[in-house]
């Protein structure tokens, strides 16, 4: 009979807000950044804020969907799954790109092949998914939005499959399926020659290499830097080509509407889109900042209010 951890079952009247973090594709947040978020939400609502980090995808989704947590920061795929579980789960904010608007609040998911093999995947002079059947495929993990859900959704559509299950296992659609467990891992699988085709995104790889041309379209060429650190030290200088590229909406901050009042939600939106947050390096850290921020600052990066509608393209590609 000790300790004072909350057993609060949530609910609108509660004076505590639980925020769930799932370290995912983009948010490599650090303690300081999490704390900053706590402070801002507390400032906005006057409520006690609990931030909890889970490494488990399902735990995060179930928490927000069941209302045990009222606010969550998770990848787009996680949001969509949670939304499917409970329509009370709604996105309220995401972060913008350079422009400071939703126009470029995207990152990209690619289906890549080694540069030397790229020609084989052209059909009528255009890159196509047609030839990937039977190849050795590398994904990130089966919960990654840009490293699995989006590309697999696209392949499913292109080949008219019933579900993505067949894409997830060796010996079905692909001769072999492997998981890099991270975008870096998936890229290394490809460049080392363990996989013929790989899915990964751009934002996790920017510190290891550069895009040589328009990175938003099929045909984008990605080259590893000559001084790339581990795990890329054995594939320095190698290049890959995207045979497909998909824009993915940046990840949202979501709330469970049944457990948090609209008033509070609006206060949070207001607070987080304010100038002080925009300029707070703990939220948006410059590329070379010592203390890691929640996100990387690029031009005018800041929080922008959104609704479920903004994720329509992803809803569609995931077939939900």
């Amino acid at each position, binding site marked *: *009979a*000790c*300790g*004072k*951890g*909350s*057993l609060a079952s949530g609910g609108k009247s509660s004076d505590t807000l639980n925020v769930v973090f799932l370290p995912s594709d983009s948010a490599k947040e650090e303690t300081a950044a999490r704390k900053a978020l706590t402070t801002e939400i507390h400032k906005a609502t006057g409520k006690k804020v609990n931030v909890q980090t889970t490494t488990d*995808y*399902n735990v995060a*989704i179930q928490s927000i969907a069941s209302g045990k947590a009222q606010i969550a920061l998770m990848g787009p795929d996680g949001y969509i*799954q949670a939304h*499917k*579980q409970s329509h009370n789960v709604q996105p309220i904010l995401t972060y913008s790109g350079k422009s400071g608007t939703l126009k470029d609040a995207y990152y990209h998911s690619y289906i890549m092949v080694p540069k030397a093999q790229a020609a084989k995947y052209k059909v009528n002079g255009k890159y196509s998914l047609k030839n990937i059947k039977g190849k050795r495929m590398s994904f990130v993990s*089966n*919960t990654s939005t840009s490293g699995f859900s989006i590309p697999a959704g696209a392949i499913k559509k292109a080949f008219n499959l019933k579900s993505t*299950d067949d894409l*997830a*296992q*060796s010996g079905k659609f692909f001769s072999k*399926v*492997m*998981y890099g*467990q991270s975008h870096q*891992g998936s890229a290394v*699988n490809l460049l080392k020659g*363990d996989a013929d085709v790989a899915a990964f995104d751009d934002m996790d790889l920017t510190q290891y290499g550069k895009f040589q041309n328009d990175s938003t379209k099929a045909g984008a060429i990605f080259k590893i830097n000559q001084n790339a650190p581990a*795990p890329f030290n054995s594939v320095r200088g190698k290049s890959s080509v995207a045979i497909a590229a998909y824009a993915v909406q940046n990840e949202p901050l979501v709330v469970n509407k049944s457990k948090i009042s609209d008033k509070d939600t609006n206060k949070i939106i207001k607070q987080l889109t304010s100038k002080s947050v925009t300029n707070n390096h703990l939220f948006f850290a410059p590329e070379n900042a010592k203390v890691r921020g929640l996100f990387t600052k690029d031009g005018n990066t800041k929080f922008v209010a959104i609704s479920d509608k903004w994720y329509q393209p992803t809803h569609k590609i995931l077939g939900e």
Partner: protein
Amino acid sequence: MELRQTNGNAFFLKKRLKLTLLIGLIGVLYVGASLVLDFNSAAFLYLDRGIIWLAKNFIPNSQSMAYWQEILGALIRTLLVSVAATSVAAVISLGLALMGAKSTGPSQVVSWVIRGFASFMRNIPIVGWAMLLLFSFKQNDFTGFLALLFLSVGFLTRAFMETIEDVDIEKIQALQVTGANYFQVVSQAVLPEICTPLISWVLYMIENNLRDATLVGLLTGTGIGFVFDLYFKSLRYGPAGLVVLAIIILVIAVELSSNFVERRIAHD
């Protein structure tokens, strides 16, 4: 010494005092750990909620029966890999344990080295092994096999060592004094004596490795663990429940057959 003169009250008082102190210390540690973690003991009052949620969500429905073939195949695969990894580990561990046990090993130093090695293999967290192995061996059954092998070697070496040390040293001596050499003593005295517990450890390990199938799934991209992960992560709890049920049935089947084997080889 001064106790002997008394009527025993002092003795019982001291014993009770010690017990009280021990309970007090554990209590303090409990409170301390609860504070560190922010754990509320009252949480145990809500035990039923979890069970109810489990029952509601994980009961396999008719829809999930569509997956049974897939599950069965993966289940068999997992069983085979567990058995193979355990068997190979058992052979390695037996060698190590013979060298490491006090009664059969060459020296205390070797014993500590082997103990340390076994401990190292067991105590590298699963996530750590996953990273190391995946990085070099990629996703395949072999990686899962290796992970289970390493963990099993760590576990079995220690178990075998303790089993060997449980053999009455006089029985070993009884053969030594006939002039039999080391290998003869090991094969004629130690092995027959430990055969029964050895087999039950191996069977237990197989069972345990099946239970760790989630790990194997993560590492291999095949097997029952992967199938579970696949359904679980896509929030298809019905089929995931079916997988759990399949694991339960398999584990219990293995447990029952190991009980059966143990009864048949028991001595009494």
